[in-house]
């Protein structure tokens, strides 16, 4: 075992929300990209690649 190296084991956070009237059922998907980047800045990572469909958006992050 190395004394130190890159930590592979992930931390995983899942949050659910409720609201009266998410616009066109888009809800959190309306968040501007720079708001997502601002949130990820707190985490110390950033978006490197993205894809989405009718249901959700998926981002690959640095780290």
């Amino acid at each position, binding site marked *: *075992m*190395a004394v*130190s*190296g*890159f*930590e*592979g*084991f*992930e*931390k*995983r*956070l*899942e*949050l*659910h*929300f*409720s*609201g*009266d*009237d*998410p616009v066109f*059922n*888009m*809800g*959190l*998907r*309306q*968040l501007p990209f720079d*708001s*997502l980047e*601002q*949130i*990820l800045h*707190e*985490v*110390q*990572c950033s*978006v*490197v*690649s*993205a*894809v*989405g*469909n009718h*249901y*959700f*958006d*998926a*981002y*690959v*992050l*640095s*780290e």
Partner: protein
Amino acid sequence: SSLFVYPTKIIIKTCGTTQLLKSIPPLLHHALNLGLTISSCRYTRGNFIFPLSQPFPHTSFHEEVVYLEDSLPNHLCYRKASVMPSNITAHVWHVFSACDQTPLVHFPPSDLYTVEICMTELDRTQARKFFRRPGDGKTGDAAGKEMTEIAGIHKINPNALICDFAFDPCGYSMNGIDGDRYSTIHVTPEDGYSYASFECVGSIYDDEDDEDGGDGDDFIRMLRRAVQVFRPGKVSVSVTTATTASHRLWARVAGAMEPLGLKCRSCMADEFPAAGSVVFQTFTARRK
């Protein structure tokens, strides 16, 4: 690392020395501006290989729980934190969950389950596929696509649209999207602390075992393909579900692993608000 954004759900999964929980305050702030209020929270992680390298608030599970308790609003009043042990010391499962309604009300919809697989001691030949060739001149996207094909990751769920990325000099991440379901793989291939994870969402209505107990089950096929990509020495599988069929799910997981030469070493179940039941199983390769 990955981020999934649904209309009323967000999932962030990060490795390394990221400070994941620091995302909660700004996330709650932005959601509130959209008229959305948090209704449940689930935080999970395995056992860090290098715990002393973790920054605040991830220096211990206790510290993480204190940070979560302080960051979440009071209306998420049903809370539970637990460490699920195993007889493989490197694989321990940490779970925190909170929700705003009685735990008898299920989140998410009761037919869904989430499978999180953590794999260590990866086969060296397989792990080598996740190193960039020096001076390959490729972008992270192009190199990622190459790794997806060479390693056979594109065969795990042939229906999924894959977004992949290769890091320099090594490491790999991919997200697969298939309708409203995601799957994700992350690889740290360095010898001595090699690690890979696979996570996906399924529904109990998707498929069932063949009557003859064969492997006609898409879920089992997908798990097997994912694990075969890495041929790990040690594996842990966490299945989270609000269904009443959790006992069947963990039996199917064990059934998927056995033919790969992975023997079940431990199995533990617990109940959590918002999450439902969490079953944590560990496996080791018979070759070890």
